[in-house]
């Protein structure tokens, strides 16, 4: 097909010398032991996105986050200008400090201080222990030594990241690198209309992520999202991206805009509900006015541009769409073969009911195709767990999948070397 030029080496895959073109193993996605290594090598030392600053708009606002991949729960709280993160553990005898009704579940709220539900120790928003019940009963206890255990916390473009390493090997900005820093000036802060979704799924976190690192599957798995008249043509046409780019462990894939412009198509090729609501699979037709956008959102300078999907290693993605909205994906492993997938759709605050209807159409579309992905990935996990087949071929449109597994394995190898 070759609709778009490939790099001089002949393929996107060969453009990057650390990648080969051989079939790969998915044992990294079926093994309990490997997952235990990934927790140490990846989740306990990478920068992980845990929220947005809008979730903690003023001092005292907090939320908790369960992070089974790092064997912990954290509190993220705004203390004046600062956003802080702490392990959600009381220093007295280990009770989970902040929770409500269900000890396993996440919660959010506003507090002047945190009081332990067990024996009443208290902590300030800065983590300092401020009160010990019956303090004189203790033996030489110095409250100053019993503050909450801090977690490294920083923000990028309003996204809150944490790092569980004692001393992260890189700052957040160094970790993200130039390609991801290029989206910094996108107006994320203004896009506060949010549709939030969640699913628990029986698939390895990388296997799940893989389906969002390639669109090779889209004309097959998702072809039903298009009107009947177009389906055969879409599947036969396949998928080609005009641009892939890797930077450190991260990656981006860009999709061209031609398929996205329903308003330029003959009406018989558009769903009647899309015509009625002026919205659809790729979002509302009326472009949101976001002002001038940073060139970094379209690093391949593709025209017409449709979408860039930025993969923040290890488990976060931002997808920025031509129509002026974005969504995020996050893949939180809960075991070697299960995860929680969180999806969010964000846009500017709707100014009218009809804008809301357009966003509703986009949000329902997101659900319909995410259901297709989630179910397919459970089926994929079953296939690779059978242990019958050990090598799996990847094509050039799956370059980000190859890179992702390579980077994850690299970190495990580094960790093993370090441990001797």
């Amino acid at each position, binding site marked *: 097909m070759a609709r778009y030029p490939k790099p001089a080496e002949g393929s996107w895959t060969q453009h990057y010398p650390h990648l080969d073109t051989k079939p790969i193993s998915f044992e990294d996605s079926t093994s309990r032991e490997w997952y235990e290594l990934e927790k140490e090598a990846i989740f306990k030392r990478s920068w992980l996105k845990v929220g947005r600053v809008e979730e903690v708009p003023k001092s005292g606002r907090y939320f908790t986050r369960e992070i089974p991949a790092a064997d912990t729960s954290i509190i993220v709280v705004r203390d004046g200008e600062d956003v802080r993160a702490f392990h959600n553990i009381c220093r007295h005898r280990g009770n989970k400090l902040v929770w409500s009704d269900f000890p396993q579940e996440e919660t959010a709220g506003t507090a002047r201080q945190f009081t332990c539900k067990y024996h009443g120790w208290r902590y300030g928003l800065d983590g300092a222990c401020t009160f010990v019940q019956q303090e004189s009963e203790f033996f030489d206890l110095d409250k100053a030594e019993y503050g909450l255990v801090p977690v490294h916390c920083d923000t990028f473009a309003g996204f809150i990241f944490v790092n569980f390493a004692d001393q992260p090997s890189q700052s957040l900005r160094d970790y993200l690198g130039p390609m991801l820093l290029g989206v910094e000036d996108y107006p994320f802060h203004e896009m506060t209309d949010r549709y939030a979704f*969640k699913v628990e799924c029986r698939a390895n976190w990388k296997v799940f992520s893989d389906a969002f690192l390639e669109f090779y599957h889209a004309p097959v798995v998702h072809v039903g999202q298009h009107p009947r008249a177009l389906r055969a043509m879409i599947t036969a046409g396949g998928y080609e991206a005009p641009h892939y780019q890797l930077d450190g462990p991260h990656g981006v894939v860009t999709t061209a805009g031609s398929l996205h412009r329903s308003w330029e198509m003959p009406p018989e090729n558009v769903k009647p*509900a899309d015509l009625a609501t002026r919205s659809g699979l790729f979002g509302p037709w009326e472009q949101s006015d976001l002002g001038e956008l940073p060139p970094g959102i379209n690093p391949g300078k593709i025209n017409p541009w449709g979408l860039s999907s930025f993969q923040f290693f290890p488990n976060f993605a931002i997808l920025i769409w031509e129509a002026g909205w974005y969504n995020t994906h996050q893949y939180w492993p809960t075991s070697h073969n299960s995860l929680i997938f969180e999806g969010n759709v964000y846009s500017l605050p709707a100014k009218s009911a009809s804008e*809301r*209807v357009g966003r509703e159409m986009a949000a329902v579309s997101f659900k319909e195709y995410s*259901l297709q992905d989630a179910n397919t990935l459970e089926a994929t996990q079953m296939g690779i767990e059978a242990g019958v087949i050990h090598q799996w071929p990847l094509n050039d449109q799956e370059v980000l999948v190859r890179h992702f597994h390579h980077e994850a394995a690299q970190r495990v190898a580094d960790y093993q070397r370090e441990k001797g």
Partner: protein
Amino acid sequence: MPMLPSEFSGLERYAGKWCLATENERWKARMSSGMEELQELYDAVLPLVPEAMAYCDKFPLDDMPEDAVNLLRLVYSFVMVSFAVELWAQTYPPDTRGTDFVRLSEPLP
């Protein structure tokens, strides 16, 4: 008392079941209805969507009268059932019974 503005009295018979505030409720209503019923709702609302949106747009989003909010919710339900009618010819997307995908929050109304 009618739930919808008088201009949309033709849709009143759908209002009791389909003027639902959240996606969770609309999804459940779609899953628990027969295709004939979804088709009927779809056919009734589709031609009136542009008018319904124009009607709702007369009010600020944070200060809509109750009947306009109901009308907006009915349009949301139309969006919800349109996928079953236009794409799948069944209530749920094919091959998606193994997992749910729950909407936790959304802007209201």
